[in-house]
């Protein structure tokens, strides 16, 4: 059977603690998109778990289809700063990629596993992961594109971007993903859609999806392909994920400091304006402390308390089990 398209990845397995860091990051602000990089490995896993679905296998050769599936395992994530804060411009700089690769090497040494940068994630505040309709026609200047998306059972809720802007956003995401795949075929993209609220039904939603890009057969443009994503349970939070989680306030503070430094370096500003800017900086840091640092601290303290209690319970259970075991000998 001729293979028209070889899909590099059949599924993504995302560790739950890495998922937690992504979700926390996405939920940290509804004002702008956030992004980060996924660290993990690409393996050819045996097809041994029936509950995990895979995709694209029909495209592979018979020999390839039988025993193995290409799985991307995401073990941790790195929160990134956005250099370009323009709306819908979520791009990773070469410096960031290089730093992430260095971090991946460090993790590889730590875990003894071949870790590398395997994907990226970003958030969609107030907009769904993909618009629920088929779009065709010339959206860009030069060529017509065709984007096929899944039809979501319930239509997206209000508070979303205008139709054409969403399409441009979709196109941008797909093209960006395609660009990364040029470096690494197994590179995957995750999107976390949050702060979607229906004021009529008073319900909120969080969605997450996984995708890659492939070149359309009839044009030079790219199409999105869905990649199954499964969350791998991880009852405890790994060290790397914990460290990533607490990086968030630090990164936010650095962004604010850089912004203030740029403003403060303007020599033409008078003293009153400088005092004003200083107050703005203070105000913004206070907002970060109230909205991010404080709640993060609180969650970690609660987690510590829960773990301490859980330790006690588990200790007791362990003793009981030891006693039971010894009674059986």
């Amino acid at each position, binding site marked *: 059977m001729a293979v028209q398209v070889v899909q590099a990845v059949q599924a993504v397995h995302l560790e*739950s*603690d890495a*998922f*937690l860091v992504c*979700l*926390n990051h*996405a*939920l*940290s602000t*509804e004002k*702008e998109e956030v992004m980060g990089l996924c660290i993990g490995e690409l393996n050819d896993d045996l097809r041994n778990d029936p509950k995990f*679905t895979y*995709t694209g296998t029909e495209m592979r050769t018979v020999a390839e289809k039988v025993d193995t599936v290409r799985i991307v395992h995401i073990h941790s994530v790195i929160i990134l700063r956005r250099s370009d804060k323009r709306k819908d411009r979520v791009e990773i700089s070469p410096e960031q990629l290089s730093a992430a690769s260095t971090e991946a090497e460090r993790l590889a040494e730590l875990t003894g596993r071949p870790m590398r940068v395997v994907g990226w994630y970003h958030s969609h*505040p107030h907009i769904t*992961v*993909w618009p629920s309709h088929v779009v065709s026609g010339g959206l860009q200047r030069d060529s017509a594109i065709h984007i096929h998306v*899944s039809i*979501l059972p319930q239509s997206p809720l209000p508070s979303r971007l205008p139709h054409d802007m969403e399409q441009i956003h979709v196109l941008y995401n797909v093209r960006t993903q395609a660009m990364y795949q040029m470096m690494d075929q197994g590179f995957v993209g995750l999107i976390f859609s*949050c*702060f979607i*609220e229906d*004021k009529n*039904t*008073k*319900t*909120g*939603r*969080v*969605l*997450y*999806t*996984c*995708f890659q890009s492939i070149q359309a057969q009839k044009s030079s443009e790219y199409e999105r392909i*869905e*990649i*199954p*994503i499964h*969350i791998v*349970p991880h*009852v405890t939070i790994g060290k790397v994920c914990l460290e990533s989680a607490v990086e968030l306030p630090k990164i*936010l503070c650095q962004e604010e400091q850089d912004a203030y430094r740029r403003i403060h370096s303007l020599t033409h500003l008078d003293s009153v304006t400088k*005092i004003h800017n200083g*107050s703005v900086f*203070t105000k913004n840091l206070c*907002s*970060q*402390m109230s*909205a*991010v*640092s*404080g*709640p993060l*601290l*609180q*969650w970690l*303290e*609660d*987690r510590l308390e*829960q773990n301490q*209690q859980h330790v006690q319970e588990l200790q007791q259970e362990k003793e009981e089990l030891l006693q039971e075991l010894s009674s059986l000998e």
Partner: protein
Amino acid sequence: MEGESTSAVLSGFVLGALAFQHLNTDSDTEGFLLGEVKGEAKNSITDSQMDDVEVIYTIDIQKYISCYQLFSFYNSSGEVNEQALKKILSNVKKDVVGWYKLRRHSDQIMTFRERLLHRNLQQHLSSQELVFLLLTPSIITESCSTHRLEHALYKPQKGLFHRIPLVVANLGMSEQLGYKTTSGSCTSAGFSRAVKTHSSEFFKEDGSLKEVQKINEMYSSLQDELKSICEKVEHSERAVEKLLNDVNRLKGEIKKRKQAQLQATREKNVQKDPQENILLCQALRTFFPDCELLHSCVISLKNRRISGSSCTTTHPLSGVHNLTLMVEYTDFPEASPARSALPVTKRKASDMDDGWQFKRSRLGEIQNRPSKTYTNSSNQEKASPVSSPETDEEMERMKGSGEYPQSPTF
């Protein structure tokens, strides 16, 4: 008119932690929500209402306690196991504001058991404001590429369960440009510790902010500067005002005097250079072309003799005046043949006849009077009133006697 509204808020970390806990279990998960309820009365005055008070309640969900197993504090009928409940909530330092459940692949609707359990919990916890957070995770694409977590908060009102708004607090929430009236809900010990360590750098002993005092002092200095310059400007304004008044007054006086002078000059000029009565001149020429006496002087509009010599100027007259001067020769036997071509109306001619008779008699009197030489000096004007008054007096007499000849009408 009073109203109240209720909403809830929780941080993204709490929501994320709930989702994390659920992902690590194979079954549904449930537990309790801890936090506090804050009420804020907002007073608004509108055109229709003088005093409109609205009480806004915010349920602040700050943490949760998870139950590791389902049915750990209740049975299948929704009845509460009080012992188990006490054990779960024994170490709770905060108030219980509600409970939660994560139900896989189900609708966002409370089940009957959940409604019963909620009412029972309300009784056992003595909290009528208890809320229920329902989270329903699901896979929404066949390929399992897209997952969804839906959430809603329920609260019974008048026997029915209603959803109330649940806000996920985050950094990008609509920034308050004004003053905040509620403080953050963070009760983290580490947070309080860090803040307290640096409090003295921000606050004075009396609790006031150092930065606020500094800016107030600077502002006060600015106000002093404003006051000082204001006084100086005020003085200068008064000076300008006084001078403007003086100048305007002087200008007014000068204007008045100039106008008076101008008027006097005009009067003099009028007397100096009186304007010739052109119509009279032309009329005399027309009707008395041969009477040299009538042409012997030039008369002004004010009936003053301007010149003692005859007028030699040809006066161009308008069409109306030409028509006025057009009379028939036959009506005026004394008129020259040259004038006979002019048409004339009978009525006016008859009037004219009497008038001209009188004129002839007057002309005779004039001819008998000694003539006087007139110069162009101002005496002429003085002199002319000497003769003129006679003429004028006679004219006046004639007016009174009704014999004043009417101006020739044609």
